């Protein structure tokens, strides 16, 4: 039973890695800037899979990208994307998913902890992203904030709101090892 459970979690984690990859291409066209689903899927990986398997999922996504499989936004993989100007956001997914899993993955999932977890997660994400953007391009910190954070904040708030509802609807469906004792 233990190994079959592990196999299912492994397949789930791969699925979320693929969802993260696809999320860069799937967008909802509203207003001038389409809402890209990628970081919502990363949040959901933390919420639904927990910290350990969420981390595995993002790790596999990054590794696949680093090896040159075309999974990053814009279609081009390769180690160049990770050391490139937007690479900090990619690396930042690791602490993000871990934090979200740690904070929200408790025996009795509640929406308020989910929101808190995702806010902590996005803070970690922007901390990594902005720092790296600043180092690689040599912008000032204020400029890096304007280019790399301010335009995305509204979209992130919307995604967090949606992710709470999606996680609530899907937790009973997704039979994740940690939650099985509940049902």
């Amino acid at each position, binding site marked *: 039973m233990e190994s079959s459970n592990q196999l299912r979690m492994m*397949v789930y984690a791969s699925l979320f890695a693929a969802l993260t*990859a696809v999320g860069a291409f799937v967008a909802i066209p509203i207003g001038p800037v389409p809402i890209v689903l990628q970081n919502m899927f990363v949040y959901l990986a933390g919420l639904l899979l927990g910290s350990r398997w969420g981390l595995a999922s993002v790790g596999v996504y990054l*590794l696949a990208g680093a090896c040159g499989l*075309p999974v990053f936004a*814009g279609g081009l993989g*390769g180690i160049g994307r990770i*050391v*490139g100007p937007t690479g900090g956001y990619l690396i930042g997914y690791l602490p993000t998913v871990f934090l979200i899993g740690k904070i929200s993955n408790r025996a009795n999932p509640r929406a308020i902890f989910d929101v808190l977890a995702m806010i902590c997660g996005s803070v970690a994400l922007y901390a990594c992203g902005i720092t790296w953007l600043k180092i690689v391009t040599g912008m000032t910190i204020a400029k890096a904030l304007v*280019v790399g954070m301010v335009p995305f904040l509204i979209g992130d708030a919307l995604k967090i709101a949606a992710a709470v509802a*999606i996680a609530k609807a899907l937790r009973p469906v997704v039979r994740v090892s940690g939650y099985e004792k509940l049902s």
Partner: protein
Amino acid sequence: MAELTSFSFRSGTSLLHRLDVRFKLLFLILISLISLSGDFPRLGIFTCLLTVLIINSRLPLKSGLKGLQFFLILLLLILGARMVTTPGDPIIEIKFFSITRQGILSGVLICWRLTIIVLLGFAFIFSTRSFEIKAAVEWVLKPFAFIPGKRIATMMGLTTRFVPVILNQANETAEAQRARCVENRKNPVYRLIRLGIPLIRRTFERADKLAVAMEARCYNENRTDPELSATRIDWMALVVMILICGLVVSI
């Protein structure tokens, strides 16, 4: 994935195609790291090398540039930001902004570095089959006993397999909702939820079936590895590469 992106493997017989994948990965990392800290003469040498390789392997640059248009826009933004913000001798002055010589130089330098790194990645994907990449990952992770290399390689394989499945499902869901006039709903949170729930739920059902199928077929991590073999060309390429990198670093 082929219709999604212009960056994919194309078969060929060039030098890049014949090199062992482990050596290619090593070269990729080496050149990326050196050019990240390189200045004009170093980048010049790498550009010459890259040009020779690109011409030799008949890289489809035209379709590549089309896929890279967002990257090019980003490059222009960085160039502009550097030109305006770096202090130095002004060349052109327009009211508040002054474009400086130092700014242009440093902007061009940064853009050049990033272009080299991205083109390297392009050349790598173009000339390497995905099962070779998987084998290389297993080989690299083998010495680290605490990392389950075979499981990670399998997960990478599953991930690339899931991508077209999810894309089809996302298209199908979006079409179905468009047919039901979802575009009249202006609330983005509603749209995100209505797209996210069926998409994830259905792909999870697929994943469940796949897990059961793998179990039924006795999936096991102890299986025969794909063979990677280094030939004389690889070692010669390694020696040439070390010479070039030594030359570049010593400049």
